[in-house]
C-alpha cells in the first residue's frame, strides 16, 4: 500500500513536470506545400487516399493508382494495367513482403512485383466489391466493404467475413480499419466503432450513448456520433481516434475525448479521416486539415486562404485565442479526404490533388517570431476535452 501510494505521488509529479514542459512548447508547423495535380500528371483531381512506403508515396485517385517518387508522378496504374477498378479507396503496404494491397470499388488487388492479382466477390470469398479500407496484419489482409468486413488469410487462402449476420454490426457499411496490436478497430458508417479482439476472436461495439443523431447530450461519455467515417490508432499513446461527420472522438481505453468545432480549434465537424502519432491527432475535414497537439490542447488548422496561392495556418491556443499565420504555398484544396506521415512531413489527399506538406524549422521559427499574439504559459487550457465518468 505504502509503496503504491509513493509510486502514485511520483507519477503525478512526473506527469505535472512533463505536461508542464509540453505545453510550454509551440506545435510544429507545416510551412510549405508541394502539390500534385492533373497538371503534374495525376490521372484525376480527386485523391481518396495516400500511403507512404519509405521514399515511395502511393495515392489512390478516382481514376487509378499513382506512384510518386523523387518528387514526381513516376507511374499511373489503371484498369488496363490490371487494376480491378479505377476508383482506388485504400492502400496498405505489407511491410514483410513489400507488396501492396489495394481496396477499390471493384474488389481487392494484391500488387506484387509489378503484377496485379485481383480478388472479387464472384471469384473469391470477398464479401463485396465496394471496398473502402484495407490493412495488413501478419498473414491477414483486412478489408472494409459496403457489406461488412472481410479477412483474407494469405497463407491458406481462407476468407472470413463479418457483418450484421454474425457480429454486432448496427449497419454493414464498413469504411475504415485500424490495426491496434491485439485489437483491430473498424469505422462503421451509422454503426459506430467496432473493436475486434484478435486473440479472443470476439467483437465489441462502441456507439453513441445518447443515440441522438445531431446532438451530444453526454459529453465525453462515448463516441460523439455513430456515423463514423474512419478510424486511426496511435501506437505511441495507445489511443484510438474515430472521425465522424459530427465531430472527432478519441478513446484511451477508459475515457472518451470528444472534440467539436464550437469549443476547439477543429476546422469542421465533418471529418473524413483521422490520423494520429506521437502527440499529434490529425483530422481531415471538409474545411481544411486540423492537428491537435494533444498534451497542450493546441490546435493548428491548414487551409488555402482566399488569397490565391497562399496558405493559411490558424492556431487555436489552449485559452481559445486564435491566431492566423500565412504561408506562401497552400494545400491543394480544403476538402481533405485522407493523409499519411513521411518522417516529419505529411502527405494529404484532397478533392483537388495530392499535397506534400513539408516542415522547415527555420521558416517555422520565423513565423512564430513574427506572430504578435504570443501565448503566455499561464493560459493553460480550461477548454481541453473533459474526462468522462
Amino acid at each position, binding site marked *: 500500500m505504502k509503496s503504491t501510494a509513493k509510486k502514485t505521488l511520483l507519477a503525478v509529479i512526473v506527469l505535472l513536470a512533463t505536461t508542464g514542459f509540453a505545453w510550454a512548447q509551440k506545435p510544429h508547423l507545416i510551412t510549405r506545400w508541394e502539390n500534385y495535380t492533373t497538371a503534374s500528371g495525376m490521372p484525376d483531381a480527386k485523391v481518396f487516399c495516400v500511403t507512404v512506403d519509405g521514399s515511395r508515396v502511393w495515392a489512390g485517385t478516382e481514376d487509378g493508382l499513382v506512384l510518386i517518387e523523387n518528387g514526381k508522378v513516376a507511374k499511373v496504374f489503371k484498369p488496363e494495367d490490371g487494376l480491378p477498378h479505377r476508383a482506388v479507396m485504400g492502400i496498405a503496404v505489407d511491410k514483410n513482403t513489400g507488396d501492396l494491397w489495394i481496396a477499390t470499388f471493384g474488389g481487392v488487388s494484391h500488387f506484387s512485383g509489378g503484377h496485379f492479382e485481383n480478388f472479387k466477390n*464472384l471469384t473469391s470469398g470477398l464479401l463485396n466489391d465496394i471496398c473502402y479500407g484495407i490493412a495488413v496484419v501478419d498473414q491477414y489482409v483486412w478489408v472494409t466493404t459496403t457489406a461488412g468486413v472481410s479477412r483474407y488469410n494469405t497463407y491458406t487462402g481462407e476468407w472470413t467475413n463479418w457483418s450484421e449476420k454474425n457480429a454486432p454490426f448496427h449497419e454493414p457499411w464498413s469504411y475504415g480499419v485500424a490495426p491496434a496490436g491485439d485489437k483491430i478497430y473498424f469505422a462503421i458508417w451509422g454503426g459506430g466503432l467496432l473493436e475486434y479482439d484478435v486473440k479472443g476472436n470476439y467483437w465489441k461495439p462502441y456507439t453513441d450513448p445518447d443515440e441522438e443523431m445531431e446532438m451530444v447530450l453526454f459529453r465525453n461519455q462515448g463516441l460523439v456520433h455513430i456515423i463514423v467515417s474512419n478510424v486511426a490508432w496511435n501506437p505511441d499513446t495507445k489511443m484510438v481516434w474515430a472521425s465522424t461527420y459530427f465531430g472527432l472522438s478519441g478513446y484511451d481505453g477508459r475515457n472518451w475525448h470528444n472534440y467539436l468545432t464550437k469549443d476547439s480549434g477543429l476546422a469542421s465537424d465533418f471529418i473524413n479521416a483521422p490520423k494520429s502519432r506521437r502527440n499529434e491527432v490529425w483530422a481531415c475535414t471538409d474545411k481544411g486539415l486540423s492537428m491537435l497537439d494533444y498534451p497542450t490542447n493546441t490546435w493548428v488548422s491548414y487551409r488555402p486562404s482566399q488569397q490565391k496561392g497562399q496558405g493559411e495556418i490558424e492556431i487555436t491556443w489552449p485559452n481559445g485565442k486564435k491566431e492566423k499565420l500565412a504561408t506562401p504555398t497552400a494545400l491543394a484544396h480544403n476538402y481533405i479526404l485522407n493523409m499519411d506521415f513521411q518522417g516529419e512531413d505529411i502527405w494529404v489527399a484532397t478533392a483537388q490533388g495530392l499535397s506534400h506538406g513539408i516542415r522547415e524549422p527555420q521558416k517555422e521559427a520565423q513565423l512564430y517570431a513574427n506572430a504578435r499574439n504570443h501565448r503566455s504559459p499561464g493560459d493553460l487550457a480550461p477548454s481541453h476535452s473533459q474526462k468522462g465518468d
Partner: protein
Amino acid sequence: MIDLASGTEIKRFSTHRYPEQVALSRDGRRVYVSNILPHLGSYDQPPVSELLALDATKQVVAERILIPGAIELRHIAEAPAQLGGYLLVPLVRPKNLGPLIRVSQGWVLTHGMAVVRPALHEPVGEAESKVTEVLLDDIDYYFAGNDGVAFTPDGRRVIITSAEANVVSIFDTAKLARRLQQVPAEELADRLDSALTFVVARLATGHNPTAVVVSPDGLRAYVANRLDDSLTVVDLAHLKVASTIDLGGPKCITPMRRGEQLFFSAKYCFQGQFACGTCHPNSHLDGLAWNLETPQLGRDRVANRTLRGIRDTAPYKWNGRNPDLATQCGPRIAKFLFRSEGFNTQELEALLTYINNIPLAPNRHLAPDGQYTEAQERGKAIFYRRHTNDGRVIPVQSRCETCHPAETHYTNRISTEVGSATKYDTSGLLDTPQLDRVYEDAPYLHNGEALTLEEIWTVFNNYDTHGITSDMSKEQLNDMIEFLKTL
C-alpha cells in the same frame, strides 16, 4: 525465409503454383524462384508463367517476371558477370489452344529456355526484366523435359538436361549470343532451327536427368539421373560421357519404377515430342485446358486432370467414356496422343502399375490431428445439408453427397449433367470428378473455365443445376469451400 540460427520462419512470400527451384544470384542481391504451373487465366489466351525475384537485401518482393506462352519453369542458372549476368530457365511451350491432331506436324509442345535479363535497379512498381525464349529442340527431334542447367565457370558453355529425353545438351554461349542478335526476339520462341546453331553436343544419360552441376575447374559436369539412382559424369574437355557413378539403388527394377521411367520418357512419342509427364508434371496436371481429340478448333476443350489417387475413380476422362486406365493409357494414347506404336504389353502394365499408385499429396489445409477448424466444421454441415436456408427440402439428386459421396473419393462415378456445358461441348453429360485434394486442381470444371472453387458456384451455377447454392450467404459458401479444401 528461415532464420538458420533459431530455425524459425521469419516471413513468407507468395510464389505461384508449384514453386520449383530457388537460386541466389552471384552477387547475393537477388533470390529467384521458378514455378511449374502458370497463372490461372483466360482459357483462350496462351499461359503465362512466373519467375519470382526477391530483393535479398531488403527481403521484399522485387519483381514477378512474367514468362509468356510457357509453363514448367525449372532450374535457374545465372551467367557470370562478364556475360551480362543473364538467367537461363528451362521451360515448355504448350500449344494447347489448337487441336492435338497436329502431332505429326510437330509444335504441340516445344521445349526450350527463357533468357532473362533481370532489371537490377530499384523497380518502379512495374516488371521490367527482359525475357527472350529460345527453343532447344531440333526440327526433326525434340528434347523434352528441360530441367537442370549450369554454366561452366568461364561462362563459355552451358549444360542443360532434358529429363524426358534422357539427354544432356551442351552449348556454346557465344553462339547463343549471336543467335539472339540475329533473330528478332518475337520470332525466336517459335523457331526450331535455333539449337543447331549453338548446341555443340548431345549426350545420352540415365533415366530422368533432372539436375546438373559443373566442377569448379570446369572440367566435369555431374548429372543426377533421378529414376536410375546414378550420376552421369561428363568430360567437358572432350564433350563425352566419362563415366557413370552408381549410387547403390535397387539392382532389380520394379514395375513401379519402370512405369515411372516410362511415364517420364518422351521416346514413345513421334519425334520424341513429349512424355506423359510433360502434360502431367509431378504426376498431376499442367493447369491448362486442351483441345485433345477433336479436329475442330475450340470444340470439346478439356481441362487436364490429376493422376494422383485415381486408382478407384473409374471411369476416366471428363466424358466418362474410358472404363479403365488400360483403355485410357493403352492403344488410344499411342494413336491419338503419341502418333507412334506406343507401349508394348509389358510396358503398358508397368505404366499402369505406376499410375495406379500415384499417391495423393498430404493435405495442407487439414490440421495434423485431423481436427476441423470452426469454418471447416460449418462448411461440412453445408456440404451435407438437406434443407435450404428457408427450410425447403433439397431433393436427393441435388445434394452434394449424392454425387460426391465420401466413401468413394467423393465421386459416385456416374456421368450427369450439371448445367456446366457450353455451346462448344458436344455433350453435357460429364463424369462426376473425385474431390480428393480438389484445392490443388484448379482450374475447375471439365473445360477449366472456373478459375477458383468459388467460381464453380458464383459464376457457373446460376440455376442451381450443380447442387442448390443460390440461397447460400457468402459466409456459407466460404465455409463450404473451407470444407472442400480438407478433402
